[in-house]
Structures are given as C-alpha cells and as structure tokens.
C-alpha cells in the first residue's frame, strides 16, 4: 500500500532525469569529453586504422588482418612481448616487495626516517630519460661498476647487463625499480600508518612475531593499498619506453625491445602506421583483459564489504 503511494507521488515531484544533478553533469563535461573523444575516440581511430595499410599518413584502405598476421610473425614483436612479460612480472613483484619492505622498515619507529624516506623517493622526481642515462653510465662495463670491482682486485668480475643480450632486461629492471619503488614505498607507508595501533598490540599479546604479524595480519589488511600500487605499477610497465630508449635503445641487437617501442618505431621510423596501430591495439587489448577482472573484483567486492 505504502509502496503504491510513493510510486504515485514520486515521479510527479522528481524533475526530469536528465536535469537532475545538472551542475554535476556540466562540471563533468571535461571528463566525459576526455573519456569519449580522446580515449574512446582516439583508440577507436587507432583500432580502425590497424586494419588498413596506412603508411606515413592515415588512410582507410582496409586490408583485413594482414597487419596482425605480420605482427605475430615478427621476431622483434615476440621478443618485445617476452621482455615486457619478464620485466612486468619482476617489476611488480620486486617493486611491491621492496616498496613494502622499505615502508615496513621505516615504520619501525626508526631514527632519520625523513632522511631515508627522501632518499628512497627522490628518484621519482627524475624522468625516465635521466634515469636511463644515469644507469647506463653506472652499468657501463668500461667505466662503471664492473671496472670498479675489477680495480679492487676481482679481475674476473663480470657484470655488464647492458651489453649482454641474455640479461639486458634485468639491467633495465634495476633502473626501473630504482625510479619507481619510492612512490610505492610512500603509498605502503601511508597504508601502514593507517593500521590501527591496537592490532599491533593484540598481536604482541598473542605472541605473534613481527615478521609473522606483517605476513599474516598486516598485509592481508592492506589489500586496497596493494591494489592501488599494482594499478600504478602496471600502468607504468605497459608504457615502458623512454627508459629503454635512454638506456639501451633496444640493444644489444633487439634483445631489450619492448612493445611500446615497437609501436612507436613502426609508426614513425618505419612509417608503417597501420603496423604500429596493430601493435598498440594488441597492447590495449591486453590492458583491457587485465583491467576488467580487476574492476569487477574491485567494484563487485566493495558492494559486499
């Protein structure tokens, strides 16, 4: 009965759907335009052109899946994918581990916390180009780390990741983690500071050791923080480009190529836009494939919590 009444009266009073929240909608116009025109529009444009034979200029002469067939039979693309997978996996694991460990160490009520935190965070202020250059210089076998260790008397010491095609991706990883782990440390530290002090006390009364408390109690509590961190790390991984260009430029040979570099070089150096678009479409597809389950978990999970 009461339901009936409200059904009758509500629509009469409620303004037209479109005009509800009018200011909010007007204020969101920049966001909506960006989302639709730039991101949806731009990617659609890219995807459409990936089915063409565009060269230097975008053209709409469709060639079906030719670009994709060529893409997946190109060794350089396959190497790029493999490199990104290795880099991505290691980078996620190491950045999270290092970021969390450092944050945990800083959270142990230590002295000089500010100093240490600044040291870990400052690389984030530097661009990837700068990062790549500095590490290229340090890892240079003739002037850098390898030579220094050899000068100390360890003549056979060999550490030249940038010149060894088997481990070059780890040379890039060293620099990537150097640049990015500070921010993650900062986020983790903020997350740790948000944990109720009483939880720590309860664990101490229960006789749980520090490490075990972190592993069994604190880390599970920080799930949202880890998710935020993962999104940030992942978005950086997929865009990996400047660092590689500055540090190795894909070398030695093509052993440190990455997908973003493939995209850009085929678009601009090889002047085969469609090939570049096909590669970037593949990257986009993998992003969507990874992100949609995440979004589902994140937003679905929140409703339950």
């Amino acid at each position, binding site marked *: 009965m009461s339901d009936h009444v409200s059904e009758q009266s509500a629509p009469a009073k409620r303004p037209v759907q479109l005009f509800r929240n009018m200011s909010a909608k007007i204020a969101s116009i920049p966001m909506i335009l960006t989302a639709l025109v730039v991101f949806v529009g731009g990617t659609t444009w890219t995807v459409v052109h990936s089915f063409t034979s565009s060269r230097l200029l975008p053209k709409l002469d469709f060639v079906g899946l030719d670009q994709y067939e060529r893409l997946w039979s190109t060794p350089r693309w396959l190497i790029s994918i493999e490199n990104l997978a290795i880099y991505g996996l290691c980078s996620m694991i190491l950045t999270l581990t290092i970021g969390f460990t450092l944050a945990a160490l800083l959270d142990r009520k230590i002295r000089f916390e500010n100093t240490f935190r600044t040291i870990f965070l400052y690389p984030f202020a530097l661009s990837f180009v700068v990062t790549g250059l500095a590490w290229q210089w340090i890892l240079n076998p003739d002037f850098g780390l390898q030579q220094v260790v050899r000068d100390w008397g360890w003549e056979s010491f060999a550490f030249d990741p940038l010149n060894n095609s088997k481990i070059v991706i780890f040379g890039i990883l060293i620099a990537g983690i150097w640049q990015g782990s500070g921010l993650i440390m900062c986020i983790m530290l903020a997350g740790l500071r*948000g944990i109720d002090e009483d939880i720590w006390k309860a664990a101490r009364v229960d006789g749980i050791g520090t490490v075990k408390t972190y592993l069994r109690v604190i880390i599970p509590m920080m799930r949202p923080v880890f998710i935020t961190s993962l999104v940030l790390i*992942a978005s950086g991984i997929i865009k990996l480009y400047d660092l590689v260009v500055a540090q190795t430029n894909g070398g030695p040979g093509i052993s440190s190529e990455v997908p973003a570099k493939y995209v850009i070089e085929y678009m601009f150096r090889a002047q085969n836009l469609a090939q570049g678009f096909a590669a970037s479409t593949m990257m986009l597809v993998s992003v969507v494939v990874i992100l949609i389950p995440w979004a589902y978990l994140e937003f679905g999970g929140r409703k339950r919590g």
Partner: protein
Amino acid sequence: MVDVAMSGPRGPKPKKAFSTRNIMLYGTLILVSVYYLLPLYVMIVTSLKGMPEIRLGNVFSPPLEITTAAWTKAWSEACTGINCDGLSRGFWNSVQILIPSVVLSIAVASVNGYALSHWKFKGSELFFTILIIGAFIPYQTMLYPIVILLREIGLMGDLGGLVLVHTVFGMPILTLLFRNYFTSIPEELFKAARVDGARFWGIYFRIMLPMALPIFVVAMILQVTGIWNDFLFGVIYTKPDTYPMTVQLNNIVNSVQGVKEYNVNMAATLLTGLVPLVIYFASGKLFVRGIAAGAVKG
C-alpha cells in the same frame, strides 16, 4: 609499601645500541640507500669532472680537480642547432608551460573527483572506468588522433593546445586521487551543507576545497614532475621559440655525432631535474600525508 626491596629487573628493558635487530634494520636501510643514492652521486661527481678525467677514471671516483665548466656549458653555452645558449633558453618556456598546465589540470581533475564522489549520476562510473583504462595507454600511440583533434579545434601549435593535452593526460590518475579523497570526507558534512542550501559549486568551494589541501599538494607534485619532465608533447605541440627545457636537454644528451660529453650531459640532466627535485625535498612530509589521504583510502 612493604617489600620495596623486591629483586629482579627494574626500569626499562636494556637495549643494546648494536642489537641484531638494529644492525639488520639500519644495515638494510643504509645498503638500500646506497643503491638509491648511487646515480645521484655519479651524476654530481661526473658533472664536476673534466672530460680527460672521465675517460681515464671510473665513474665513482671523486673528481681530482673540481670544475664547474660543464655546468656553465650546460646552462648557457651548449648548442641546440645554431643557438648556443644552453638550457637557459628553455627554462622560462618550461615555467610558462608548467603553470597553466598544472593549474588547469588540477582544477579540472578536482572537480571531476568531487562530482564522482558525491554527485554520482547515471554513467559517471562508466566514464571513470574509461578514464582509468586511459591511464594505461602509451601516450605516443595517441599522438596522431590528438594532432587531428587539435587541428579540428584550431589549437594546434598553440600554448593552449599543449595545456589541454597535459590536462587530458593528467586526468586519469588525478581524478582517481581526488575521487578517493573526497569519498573519504564524511557524507554527513556534505548532507549538512545541502540542508543549508549549498549547491554543487557552493559545497565544492566552501566545504571541499578547504579540506583538500593535502591531496592538492600530491596532485601538484605529480603534475609538476610529469609536465616538467615531458618532452614529447612539449616538442610537438609548441614551436622552437617556446620549446621547453627538456628539448634542449634532449639535444645536449642525444647528439649522436661528435664526442659524448658525459660531464655536460650529467650537469644538464641535474639542472633539468632541479625543479621537481627541489619540490620533492621541500614537501616530503606533506606528500606522504597526501598520498595517505588520496591513494590509500577508498
């Protein structure tokens, strides 16, 4: 009390300054600090050496003879094409690009985040999801669509166009930060303001803005860093007269012919990184607090 003379431990539990725990803790921290400081050290040391010394020595050895020639050269003498006035040419250009870009991108993103937190409307979450996926797209693949877009709205080659591009690409992460932050502001406050008759903008300016200082600091730091370090957009969407500092840096560092002047490269690198670095060093604590507010909650 009776038994004052009760024996046994008394006072604080004795702590050894060099307990295993402390050695592990500080040892790890110091070791890791070396890893983080090494590149900075190398850059500074290299920038203070002369070229002959660089060729002979290793990268870690301190300069035998300190010279600031590389710094002078990087700042005011290094050539970009035929203009030999170093990085100084780009510094003010960078500032002119930086300020409107940072202001506009933060203004837009904060309003977005505010609308997404307290004024959700049908479809707002969808647009937000698209925005977040947009954060994963490598900028370079969007160059052509953006060029076409800017051409259509007549902002190609204009400072306004560049500001717009920075606003667009800064939007995903900043909106996320602001949305999370505003969501954590109690709903009651928002409701109270509505009962008091405040509307969308009234609440934004009088309630939300004054409470959002920490997250504005984070947004500002992220944007200053990102925009200051940007090369790609800066070089495509401006003209030689207004090229940012990073273009000069690229020219100094990437000159493929001739001898590589590592000392000048390093000095130029440090000079270019100075603005974001100073901002980081100056606002370390605020940054952590803001991150706590924007990234962790929600």
